[in-house]
């Protein structure tokens, strides 16, 4: 990995580095295979042109979502020094939906219709970044807080946001509530293509920042005292981390809706595949795992099993079991 070879005093021994490269290459190949499956599986002859152009848009959306969820989860783990809580478990997708409904409620649905969807999306993302950063800083910069308390508080915040956005949605127009309720399930089979370009642009903004700050995130994961002792500008790095998380959560929620446990699942698979690796290679691994799971899973689900839309439910059940396992394992350690 270039990130590791760029470090002159790296302590990672050579053989592990090559193992890392090997595993990442394997993952990349798997991801390419998954993409191939997604694009070609079950296309009726003669419809290739239509199918490819139709599926390419969905594919781009899914890859974007995979990256956004993996990166936001991993960044959250580094910033909060825990590996159980994720932005999705904390209900930040619900916070985004709450902001969406709040904007409709505040401005009125007629005014919202006049606004260009891209401007609207950008505005929502901005509000989301500000709001979530404030909340994260309040919760996580307190000096010593019990991890279980934080996880519990996070989950209850999730419930609060979900109930609040339900509540506001009902206040707008109870008759249209069904539409909102439909959006409260994740839907991998119908990616919101209209927002694809602005979502790609917003996500692309984070890439140079993530790359530039990758070593700082490694230091951040050592904890507040150590990080400050090592000369890290702690507050500024935390702020950027939480702002990026807010943006990425907005992107993935706007495109497919809320997915509670997906991030936890893929990031922990990446931790297992590259034990002890640094931020950048782990991010590459978790993104690739996310792409393999999401794109490959969707291809198999849609075109082999012929099931619609329940992939997110299966992922959530698996992720919930992973979460229970991590909790109970953490106790025994």
């Amino acid at each position, binding site marked *: 990995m270039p990130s590791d070879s760029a470090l002159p005093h790296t302590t990672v021994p050579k053989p592990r580095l090559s193992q890392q490269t090997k595993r990442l290459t394997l993952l990349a190949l798997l991801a390419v295979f998954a993409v191939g499956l997604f694009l070609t599986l079950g296309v009726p002859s003669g419809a290739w042109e239509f199918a490819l152009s139709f599926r390419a848009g969905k594919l781009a959306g899914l890859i974007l979502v995979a990256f956004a969820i993996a990166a936001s989860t991993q960044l959250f783990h580094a910033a909060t020094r825990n590996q159980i809580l994720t932005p999705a478990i904390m209900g930040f997708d619900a916070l985004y939906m709450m902001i969406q409904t709040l904007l409709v409620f505040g401005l009125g649905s007629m005014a919202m219709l006049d606004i260009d969807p891209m401007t609207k999306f950008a505005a929502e993302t901005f509000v989301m970044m500000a709001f979530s950063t404030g909340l994260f800083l309040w919760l996580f910069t307190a000096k010593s807080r*019990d991890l*279980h*308390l934080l*996880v519990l508080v996070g989950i209850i915040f999730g419930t609060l946001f979900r109930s609040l956005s339900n*509540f506001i949605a009902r206040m707008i127009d*109870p008759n249209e509530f069904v539409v909102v309720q439909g959006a409260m399930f994740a839907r991998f089979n119908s990616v919101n293509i209209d927002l694809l370009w602005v979502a790609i642009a917003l996500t692309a903004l984070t890439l140079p920042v993530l790359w530039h700050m990758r070593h700082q995130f490694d230091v951040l994961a050592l904890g507040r005292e150590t990080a400050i002792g090592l000369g890290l500008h702690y507050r500024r790095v935390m702020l950027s981390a939480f702002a990026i998380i807010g943006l990425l959560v907005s992107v993935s929620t706007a495109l497919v809706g809320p997915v509670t446990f997906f991030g936890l699942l893929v990031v922990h698979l990446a931790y297992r595949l590259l034990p002890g690796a640094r931020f950048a290679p782990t991010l590459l691994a978790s993104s690739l795992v996310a792409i393999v799971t999401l794109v490959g899973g969707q291809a198999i689900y849609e075109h082999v099993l012929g099931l619609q839309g329940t992939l997110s*439910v299966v992922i959530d059940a698996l992720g919930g079991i992973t979460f229970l396992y991590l*909790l*109970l394992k953490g106790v025994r350690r």
Partner: protein
Amino acid sequence: MKSPALHMLLALTSLVIMAALSLMIGASDMNLGAVIRGEGDDTLILLASRIPRTLAIILTGVSMAISGLIFQMLTRNKFVEPATAGTAESAGLGLLIAIAFFPAAPLLAKMSIAALCAIAGTLLFLRILDRLPPHEPLLVPLVGLMLGGVIGAVATFFAYQADLLQYLGIWTTGEFSGVLRGRYELLWITGILALIGYLYADQFSIMGMGRDVSITLGLDHRTVMWIGLIIVSVTTAVVVVTVGAIPFLGLIVPNIVSRIMGDNLRAAVPWAASLGAGALLLCDIIGRVIRQPYEIPIGTIFGVVGAAVFLYLLLGRQSHAVR
């Protein structure tokens, strides 16, 4: 507290006032004079809709608060309740199974299947709790929430495949607007169970001290545990089947009561019952008034209020511990 009897009287008076309000408020106008004169549809509205609804709210509030109290004794943890520890989700899964496989069965049979599933889910939760260390109190609600989430995901998947997704809403969001005469009477079961819970209050208090202590004190720990388990599970199942889950009610009411009253369960039960019924009545009245003529389901309102109070309890506890 100087005169508990006086306080109880005040509490009951405000409960009666709220119940009277609940009888008067609703989408269609109802004139008390017309009821007395026996004119028009007003008597019908009162007898068929308003009285059943108010009774259903009171029964649900009382029984959920008491079963929350008992559940906290069973698990020896203040931050759990049946609606957030897998019991409600198991009951919902049972209801879905009953609807899918025995669509023609009477409601009582469906409810029994839901109750059996609720008992199984609660047993599973208690089994997991045995493996948790006693010095990590916050791990208990976490594991409960996650267990509930996993069972809920299984139920969602099942509902999706069996094309029963619309039934999912029945138990995920509690709502009293569908309560009419003939559709709430099962809730009287919860009232009876709450009464049994009150009679066994002292035994539950002793059980809350732990298995070893309670056996030393001469308690038939196993039997009392099963009585508690059945009261909690069946109450939850009945509430889920008739009105839907109301999260946090069974959690915050016992916590508020124990902050004021201490941990004497027998003294706490009447307070928990009246506070539970009062809180539910108030939230239901708000839900009926705030967006007339539409209604906001009580599960949504209680989700907001309950989550906020629970957060306050959790974070307030933290600052106590620091000081």
